[in-house]
């Protein structure tokens, strides 16, 4: 018997009983659709979180003075006194080829005043490179100018919140504000970006790092933000930072470097596990669909006993009957899987339409896997009914009418 004829025969058999075929297809479609859609949701959640993290700045490393031991174990016998990070430390980091940008950060709190209005704010001292590292954007004016970071000029950039509280709707550009008793000229206002890394970017004023150190009378830095040359350069950059700082601190390893990638990877793992879990739950519905196919095929076999007997009488060997019934469940599950894929595509389309911010994406592996598993389910659960059909005694099968 030709393969095409086997398929056509199975297809005709499936369409010959529309009600049961439709129900089976529906179950299969829902099973496959659920697997694809739920994995797509998991994948979407993962991408959503990843995207949110990248908006903090790409390939970001943060150097914090002091050693934060997270591995446990006994405390060191000799007390370590962490050295301060200095501006010179930060500038020295630029020697490494793995590092593209460095932004030293000095932070403190001081009142910001303009005319009669005054308000307490976080003052951040940094350099021009901060702008690119944190992917900031300006609402008005420009960011701190590039130049020698160790020379502090009297300019400042305001967060949008402070700006509106001090200046209302009038433009602050070119105005002089007092920060902690010193005068700074406003050269820009940052666009609303919201909170990031626990710092409300609307509620701060940014001044050159040297000015901040003068203002707070300190030579130490709060931390250093570092941008690596690329994603693959991040581990190299981390090593370089530790090495350079250790060299400058007389061999003492008193620095903690946090990479954004490490954070991201953790989330990646969590969300992959989540996707698999959700997909696994959906797979149960696929199994249910498989059992339904088995059920339907069983009924089909007993309904079509005489047909099977007849096929044997006109020359079908056991193997051919087996093939016919297996291919029927394969056809059912294949069409069902296809409908499931369509269902999932419609589902993601609808979800993207109503929640455009949540990137529901069907991972290609889920698409293939669900289709293949759907087909396999049909075949596996089709074996038992097919074997039963093939094993029927023709005389007995034909004695029914």
């Amino acid at each position, binding site marked *: *018997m030709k393969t095409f*004829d086997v398929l056509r025969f199975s297809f*005709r058999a499936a369409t*010959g009983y529309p009600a049961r075929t439709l129900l089976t297809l529906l179950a299969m479609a829902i099973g496959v659709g659920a697997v694809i859609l739920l994995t797509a949701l998991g994948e979407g959640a993962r991408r959503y979180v990843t995207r949110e993290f990248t908006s903090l700045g790409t390939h970001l490393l943060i150097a914090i003075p002091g050693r934060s031991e997270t591995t446990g174990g006994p405390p060191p016998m000799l007390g370590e006194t962490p050295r301060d990070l200095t501006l010179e430390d930060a500038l020295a980091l630029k020697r490494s080829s793995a590092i593209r940008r460095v932004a030293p950060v000095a932070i403190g709190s001081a009142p910001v005043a303009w005319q009669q209005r005054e308000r307490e704010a976080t003052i951040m001292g940094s350099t021009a490179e901060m702008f690119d590292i944190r992917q900031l954007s300006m609402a008005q004016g420009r960011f701190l100018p590039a130049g020698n970071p160790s020379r502090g000029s009297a300019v400042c950039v305001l967060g949008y919140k402070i700006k509106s509280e001090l200046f209302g709707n009038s433009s602050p550009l070119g105005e002089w504000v007092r920060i902690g008793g010193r005068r700074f000229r406003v050269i820009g206002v940052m666009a609303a970006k919201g909170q990031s890394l626990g710092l409300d970017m609307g509620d701060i004023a940014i001044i050159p790092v040297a000015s901040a150190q003068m203002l707070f009378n300190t030579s130490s830095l709060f931390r250093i933000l570092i941008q690596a040359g690329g994603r693959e350069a991040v581990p190299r950059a981390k090593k370089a930072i530790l090495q350079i700082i250790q060299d400058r601190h007389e061999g003492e390893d008193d620095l903690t470097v946090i990479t954004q990638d490490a954070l991201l990877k953790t989330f990646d793992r969590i969300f992959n596990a989540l996707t698999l879990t959700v997909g696994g739950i959906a797979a149960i519905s696929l199994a249910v669909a498989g059992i339904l196919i088995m059920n339907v095929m069983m009924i089909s076999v007993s309904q079509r006993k005489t047909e099977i007997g007849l096929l044997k*009488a*006109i*020359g079908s060997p*056991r193997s051919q009957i087996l093939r016919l019934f297996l291919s029927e469940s394969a056809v059912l599950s294949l069409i069902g899987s296809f409908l499931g894929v369509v269902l999932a595509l419609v589902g993601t389309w609808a979800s993207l339409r109503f929640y455009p911010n949540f990137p529901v994406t069907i991972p290609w592996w889920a698409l293939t896997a669900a289709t293949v598993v759907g087909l396999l389910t049909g075949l596996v659960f089709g074996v038992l009914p097919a074997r039963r059909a093939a094993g029927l005694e*023709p005389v007995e099968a034909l004695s029914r009418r």
Partner: protein
Amino acid sequence: MIELKGIGRTFQVGTEAVHALQAVDLTVRDGEYLSVMGPSGSGKSTLLNIIGLLDHPDSGVYRLDDVNATGLNDTQQAAVRRHKIGFVFQFFHLVPRLTAAENVELPLILAGVDPDERKKRLSQALEALGIADRARHRPDQLSGGQRQRVAIARATIMRPGIILADEPTGNLDRTSGNDVLDILEDLNNEGKILIMVTHDPELGRRAKRQILMLDGRIGSDSGKSA
């Protein structure tokens, strides 16, 4: 050429063993026309099923065209059924979801015959049995006589040498029953072996050779060919 030697068949009904056939010897030469008669339960159908390789004897030897048919495996027996034997049943056994033409074509499809060849043979067969105008109808849209013609077309489309008919007119009225019998006898005139099981003596008498079954044995054989 059909040769049965000492064929026995026992069925287990509950705890009781029923001897449907006991030591049956029968030889049918090519081109013969047999009717098998007898009361119900006498083993006529079992005999026909064993000749048609639908059932296996418990004892004895069945040689079909000088081949030991009892020794063949499932696939080989299926091939014999496909190429040498055509069945006609009392209840037609047409596949309800297929059209008349598709029912007739079924053996060709199962045998893997090329579509072109299939088409040719199909139209010949439909033409020969006068059901060409009914080709696109489903079985439930056909009369009993038409259904049996479709069944005969299906039984003969592989051009077998043996036609086995189990009460072929049992579900038909007199007129269409006679028509069907005429068709079957025409096939016999072409040289095919025709074996017909019936409990209607009038029909049985039309056969050149009549066999009467009694309690699983051959009670009488009008044309004992020793």
